[in-house]
C-alpha cells in the first residue's frame, strides 16, 4: 500500500513541477512570440501594398453582412460577429496608398490564410501574400510562389474572380488554388465597402 501512495505522490509532484515550469516558459517567451507574429503581419502588409512604408489599423466592426452572402458557404472561425481588421497602408508622405485585410479559405491540409492588398485609387488588388497553410510540400505549397500570387494583381470586385479563367490553377493542386481564390472572393467586396465607410469621415 505504501508503495502505491509513493507512486502517486512522486508522479503528482513531478507533474506539478512540470506544469509550473511550463507556465514560466510560456510567460517568458510570450512577449517575444507576440512581437514576432506582429512583425510577420506587418511585413506581409507592406508586401501587398507597394509604396507603403507604415500602416494604421482600422477596426471595421462586425461584418455580419458578409455572412448573408449566399455564395460563401463557410462560416468564419469565432462566429460571424468577429470584426474585420483593415490595415491602411501609408506612404512616406503620409498619404494612404490602400488597405490590406486577412482572409481564409479551406485548402487541402487545412485553413489557408492570406493577406490581400487593395489599391487606394482603383480599388483593385495590389498584392497577395500567403500567411499560413499546411498544404502538401512542392505541390499545394506552390500557392506561395510569386507566379501564382501575382495573377491576382489588378483583379477587382466587378465580378467574382474565377479559377481557370482569371487565375491559372497550379496543376495537381486544384483544392489549394481554389482555397486562395475563395478566400479572395469571400471578403474582397465587403472589405472594400467597409474601408470606404471607415475612411469617409
Amino acid at each position, binding site marked *: 500500500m505504501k*508503495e*502505491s501512495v*509513493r*507512486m502517486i505522490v*512522486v*508522479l503528482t509532484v*513531478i*507533474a506539478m513541477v*512540470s506544469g509550473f*515550469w*511550463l507556465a514560466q*516558459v*510560456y510567460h*517568458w*517567451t510570450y512577449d*517575444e*512570440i507576440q512581437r*514576432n507574429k506582429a512583425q*510577420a503581419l506587418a511585413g506581409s502588409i507592406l508586401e501587398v501594398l507597394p509604396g507603403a512604408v507604415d500602416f494604421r489599423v482600422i477596426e471595421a466592426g462586425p461584418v455580419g453582412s458578409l455572412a448573408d452572402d449566399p455564395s460563401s458557404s463557410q462560416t468564419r472561425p469565432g462566429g460571424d460577429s468577429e470584426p474585420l481588421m483593415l490595415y491602411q497602408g501609408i506612404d512616406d508622405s503620409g498619404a494612404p496608398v490602400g488597405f490590406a485585410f486577412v482572409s481564409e479559405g479551406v485548402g487541402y491540409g487545412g485553413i489557408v490564410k492570406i493577406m490581400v492588398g487593395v489599391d487606394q485609387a482603383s480599388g483593385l488588388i495590389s498584392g497577395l501574400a500567403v500567411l499560413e497553410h499546411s498544404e502538401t*510540400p*512542392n505541390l499545394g505549397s506552390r500557392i506561395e510562389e510569386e507566379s501564382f500570387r501575382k495573377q491576382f494583381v489588378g483583379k477587382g470586385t466587378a465580378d467574382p474572380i474565377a479559377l481557370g479563367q482569371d487565375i491559372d490553377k497550379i496543376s495537381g493542386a486544384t483544392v489549394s488554388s481554389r482555397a486562395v481564390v475563395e478566400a479572395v472572393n469571400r471578403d474582397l467586396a465587403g472589405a472594400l465597402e467597409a474601408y470606404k465607410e471607415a475612411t469617409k469621415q
Partner: protein
Amino acid sequence: MNRMIKDFLRGLWDEHPTFRIMIGMCPTLAVTTTALNGLGMAAATTFVLICSSVLISMLKRVIPAGVRIPAYIVVIATFVTTVDYFMLAKSPELHQALGVFIPLIVVNCIILGRAEAYASKMPVHFAAIDALGMGLGFTWALTLIGAIRELLGSGTVFGFAVMPDGFAPIKILTSPPGAFITLGVLLALMNVVSDRIAQKTKARQEKAAS
C-alpha cells in the same frame, strides 16, 4: 576516464542511433530537406536528450519502478515544450520549417530509449556523456543527410550556392521519395565502410597471431 571516452564514442559510430540502431527515423527523413533544418532539428533533440538524461539519472532513486515510464514521459515532454516555445520566440523561421516535428521529439525513441536503458541506471556524469555522444551522432547524421539532399536537390549547402552554373538540381531529392532513397543509399555505403574496417581488423589480428 577510459570508460567515459568509450561511452561518448559509442553514440558516434558503433551504436549510432540513425545508421545502426535505426531509431528516431521520422525527423531524420522529414526535416532533412536542407542542412540547416537537419542541424536545427538535431540540436533541439540533443538538448532535450541531455537535459532529460541528466534529470532522470538524478531522480533515479526517487521515481518508483511502477510509474517510471509516465514519469520519464512527463520529464521529456516538459523539456520538449520548453524548446518549442524558445524556438518560436528566437527563431520563428526554423520553427515554421520543422513544424510538428518539434513537439514530436517527445516520442523520439532515442530519448526514451536512453532514459530507460542507460540514464536510469547510471550516475549523472555517465548519463550526460552518453547523451552527448548519442546527440552528436544524431547531429552529424542529420546534418550530413540534409547537406546531401540540399546539395544535389537545390545546388546549395547551408544556403550557399556551391555547384557550378551548368548544374541541374535533382529536384526529387528534396521531396519525400528522395529522403527514403538518400538514406537507403547512405546506409548501404555505411555497410560497405564498416565491412572494410572489420576485414582490416581481422586481417591485422590474424597477422599478429601468426
